């Protein structure tokens, strides 16, 4: 009887201790002002080599299988064409940007950003529109607030902490934390686009009489000093008018596309720069 009670007590104490430990870690870890979390950094540093290791193994096995099973030459040619295609897309984006800059931002003196490819190694499967992890980190020159775009040059998100040597966390523009300075391309109606961890973002508190139509393009304004201007974000998919204001619903372009391969813009905006 006494032994059984001791065993039950022991179980109870272990349970309470472990639950309390988790609650303590949780409270220590809640990010209130987007500050670095030490525990998240440690967990990221320990687990990211495993993720990247598995990803490289999968890529290697997949590559070897394709390489030897399918026609060797066709495979090589396909990759070369794909690489050229990507390079032309990036050049196209740069040229379009230069065109816009020459019209509107002639006073801005800014170097053209260079690009680095990245692969997504992990997606939060419970909240897939919140954060992702990429296989580039400090050893590749990745820094906080670097912007990520997809293969079509459309905005995806930005790098946030934790950044390890070989991986980095990316906050998507659909995340409920943070937002993007944006405007409707047609009429330059400016606002702050926020996510809600869903597929659709929202422009809130715009004046009700501002003309907006479904299908209008939305691009970055650069006023948030985080994202460069003129990056395509998405299209207007809904408008909800209230008494004096309206809420505009925007579906980002990247939602319907694969985000396995992304591009990092290597020069984050400097403070005060637009």
């Amino acid at each position, binding site marked *: 009887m006494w032994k059984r009670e001791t065993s039950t007590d*022991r*179980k109870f104490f*272990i*349970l309470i201790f*472990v*639950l309390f*430990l*988790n*609650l*303590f*870690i*949780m*409270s220590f*870890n*809640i990010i209130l002002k987007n500050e670095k*979390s030490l*525990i*998240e950094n440690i*967990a*990221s540093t320990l*687990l990211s080599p*495993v*993720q990247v290791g*598995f*990803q490289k193994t*999968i890529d290697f096995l997949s590559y070897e299988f394709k390489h030897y099973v399918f026609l060797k030459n066709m495979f090589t040619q396909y990759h070369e064409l794909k690489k050229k295609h990507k390079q032309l897309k990036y050049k196209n984006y740069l040229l379009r940007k230069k065109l816009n800059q020459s019209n509107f931002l002639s006073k801005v003196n800014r170097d053209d950003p260079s690009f680095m490819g990245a692969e*997504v*190694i*992990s*997606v*939060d*499967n*419970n*909240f*897939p529109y*919140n*954060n992702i992890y990429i296989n580039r980190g400090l050893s590749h020159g990745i820094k906080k607030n670097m912007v990520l775009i997809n293969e079509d040059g459309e905005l995806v998100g930005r790098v946030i902490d934790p950044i390890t040597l070989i991986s980095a*966390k990316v906050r998507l523009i659909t995340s*409920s934390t943070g937002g993007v300075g944006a405007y409707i391309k047609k009429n330059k109606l400016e606002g702050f686009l926020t996510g809600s*961890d869903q597929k659709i973002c929202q422009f809130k508190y715009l004046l009700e009489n501002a003309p907006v139509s479904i299908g209008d393009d939305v691009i970055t304004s650069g006023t948030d000093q985080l994202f460069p201007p003129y990056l395509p974000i998405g299209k207007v998919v809904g408008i909800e008018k209230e008494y004096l204001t309206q809420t505009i619903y925007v579906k980002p372009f990247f939602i319907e596309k*694969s*985000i396995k391969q992304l591009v990092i813009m290597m020069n984050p905006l400097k403070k005060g720069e637009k």
Partner: protein
Amino acid sequence: MKSKFKIGLFLFLIFAQIIINRYVRVTKINLDLLYLILVYISIRSGILKTAIWATLIGWVTDFFTIGLVGVFGFSRTLTAFLLQEFYKYFDLRKRFFVFLLIFVSLSFSNLIANVFFYFIYGQSIKMSLVLQQPFLTALAGILIISSSKIRESLDVH
């Protein structure tokens, strides 16, 4: 030999979970294979081992999700303890009861985590977490123990 097979199986589940996480947007399949490892440990092991593994597996799940370490650590630990207490009332020789055990316990664990997400982030209760993931995970568990070799090495008959 059996223990090597067990370790190999657990590593395979971890490997598979990383792949599933990577392609979840494309496949829309939301599984938690690490939870199957936890169910096995809860039923087979003592209190201390269960507590340690439940916390570790919970923390790994936290890292793969919204990033708030401790939420799934808390919910998985609580569920693992309850599993240890209540599994005796299920006839685990029948696959239906194995399915039910995994489904109900994972659903409960995810519900607790969702409650934390609600209070901390304002996230609403997600049906994919509370229903879809437990259903698919329980289904995966049943498929895994369908193999007689696996049942023999895990000592579940």
